[in-house]
């Protein structure tokens, strides 16, 4: 009798499809979404270029060629050369590594911290929930970009600090979404069953609550990555992130702004790289939302 009570699946309560079936169905929905596929393709090109490009092309991104200053795009340098004669194509590839690493690191930090706070708040409720959510409200009282600026002001300029600032200012989003998702499953029967069976809290959190908040978090992380790229590039553009001569998309744009009248291509290509990547992530994010949205199933 006892094991009947402990395995709700026998009653057909809360019976979820297996993980494999869910993943296959999700992939089918995603693959039907043409814009999302296009996004995935663009992202693959950008990622592949930034990962492999610097390995295949043996040009130093900081190497100057003063006789070739501000030269437009050509077979020699596909995206042209900047005011120091540096190859912009090579700099975009290297800069992408900096920008993307910073953005991925930043989203990882805010997702891990935000979800930990949100899940604890949503699962336990009571004072833990009040404490966490009031703290998040306080952070949300600041406009997010101003909060990031303030953190960089405190920590000092630099690409790592810029990434950290973006990470911190995005924590409340993750905390809110994961709290809502955790609070929703908290009262489901399989959680009660696990409690009755004597499974400790931390194991319930990790193996039952966490998988159930995964979907909305994945969607948020995708669009959050787009936000983080823009955020890191914005801070660098203002002179608070990556510092010259190292290539970074936002910093390259800042360097190109004085050359707009004579050589607009210096500012155009890093911008195209940012727009393409952010657009790709937004397309993928929309596609994932459709996959996880119960209304489209």
């Amino acid at each position: 009798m006892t094991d009947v009570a402990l395995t709700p699946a026998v009653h057909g309560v809360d019976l979820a499809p297996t993980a494999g079936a869910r993943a296959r169905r999700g992939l089918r929905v995603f693959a039907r979404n043409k814009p999302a596929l296009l996004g995935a393709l663009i992202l693959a090109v950008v990622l592949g270029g930034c990962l492999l490009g610097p390995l295949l092309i043996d040009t130093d991104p900081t190497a100057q060629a003063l006789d070739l200053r501000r030269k437009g795009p050509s077979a020699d340098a596909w995206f042209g050369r900047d005011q120091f004669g540096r190859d912009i194509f090579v700099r975009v590839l290297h800069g992408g590594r900096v920008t993307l690493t910073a953005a991925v690191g930043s989203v990882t930090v805010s997702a891990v911290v935000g979800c930990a706070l949100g899940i604890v708040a949503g699962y336990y409720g009571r004072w833990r929930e009040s404490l966490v959510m009031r703290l998040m409200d306080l952070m949300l009282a600041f406009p997010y970009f101003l909060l990031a600026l303030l953190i960089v002001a405190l920590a000092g300029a630099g690409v790592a600090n810029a990434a950290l600032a973006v990470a911190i200012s995005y924590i409340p989003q993750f905390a809110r979404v994961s709290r809502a998702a955790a609070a929703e499953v908290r009262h489901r029967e399989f959680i009660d069953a696990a409690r009755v069976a004597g499974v400790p809290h931390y194991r319930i959190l990790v193996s039952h609550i966490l998988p159930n908040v995964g979907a909305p978090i994945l969607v948020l992380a995708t669009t959050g990555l787009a936000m983080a790229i823009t955020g890191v590039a914005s801070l660098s553009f203002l002179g608070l992130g990556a510092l010259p001569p190292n290539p970074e998309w936002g910093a390259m744009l800042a360097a190109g702004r004085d050359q707009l009248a004579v050589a607009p291509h210096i500012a155009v290509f890093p911008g195209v790289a940012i727009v393409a990547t952010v657009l790709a992530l937004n397309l993928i994010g929309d596609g994932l939302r459709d996959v996880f949205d119960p209304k489209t199933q």
Partner: protein
Amino acid sequence: MWRAELSYVAKRVAVTALMVLVVTFVVFVVLERTPGDPAQARLGQNATEERLAEVRAELGVDQPLVTQYVRFLGDLVQGDLGTSYLNGRPVAEEIARTGQVSAVLATTAMAIAVVVGMGVGIVSAAHPNGWLDGLLRITVLTGVSIPVFWMGLILISFAAVRWGWFPAYGWGTPQQIVLPAVTLATFPLAVIARMTRSSMLEALGSEHIRTLRAYAVPERVILLKYALKQALAPIATIIGLQFGALIAGAILTESVFGIPGIGRLTVDAILSRDHPYVRAAVIFTTVAYVTVNLAVDLLYRWIDPRQRRTA
């Protein structure tokens, strides 16, 4: 009903006021912890130790933190935001001046975003899945993906440098507002257009609209009168939520176009470690932000009475 509503408003205002107080404290403490000696910043590297101590006492930075905070709050209430570490000018005047510039920029941008965004969304929803809808959707998606500062640079490089339609930099004449306002409007415009389209499509699919069609009400009247009214609440919400993006955008737009607004003041003050400016700008912007959010929230309850039941 009225009494419940009034006590809800009072509660929200009280919570917001408390939040503002906590924000001022956090900003104050955080900035006091930042490395860098304001006296050194004003006098330069060659200052003597006595002169440094003198200036520290004059600025009040040699007092304990709590004393400084209480004094700061007292001054704040009287509208005194201190003087700049660098040039010794009163901060309050500068904030008022730059704040006005930013308010003009943000209001113009928001007006463009609301009018054009809703227009685009309505046109899209009127012909769903047509070529125009497809084109508009691609434009809108690109609009949310373009970083503000790049949008600004592109506009300068074409509309100012190449075609010479508008000036590239500066502030003061009506022509100088155009490019920055369009730059700042891009993101909220795209978001508003997207929300208007989906919310209008939902409204157009409702039974109430089907009945109107059965009564042969002209399509344009259905679209602009009945469906729009039904679709308005979520659009109003998304418009309210754009204020945070508007602040981020204004900081960058002002930097790109060299506009003497509060956003550029903030960045310059951070780069030069001028704490009274940073503090005042951050507090001013944050207070504006929470006030607008509160106003939007209360306005929304007024537009949509269903909200009141879930107090």
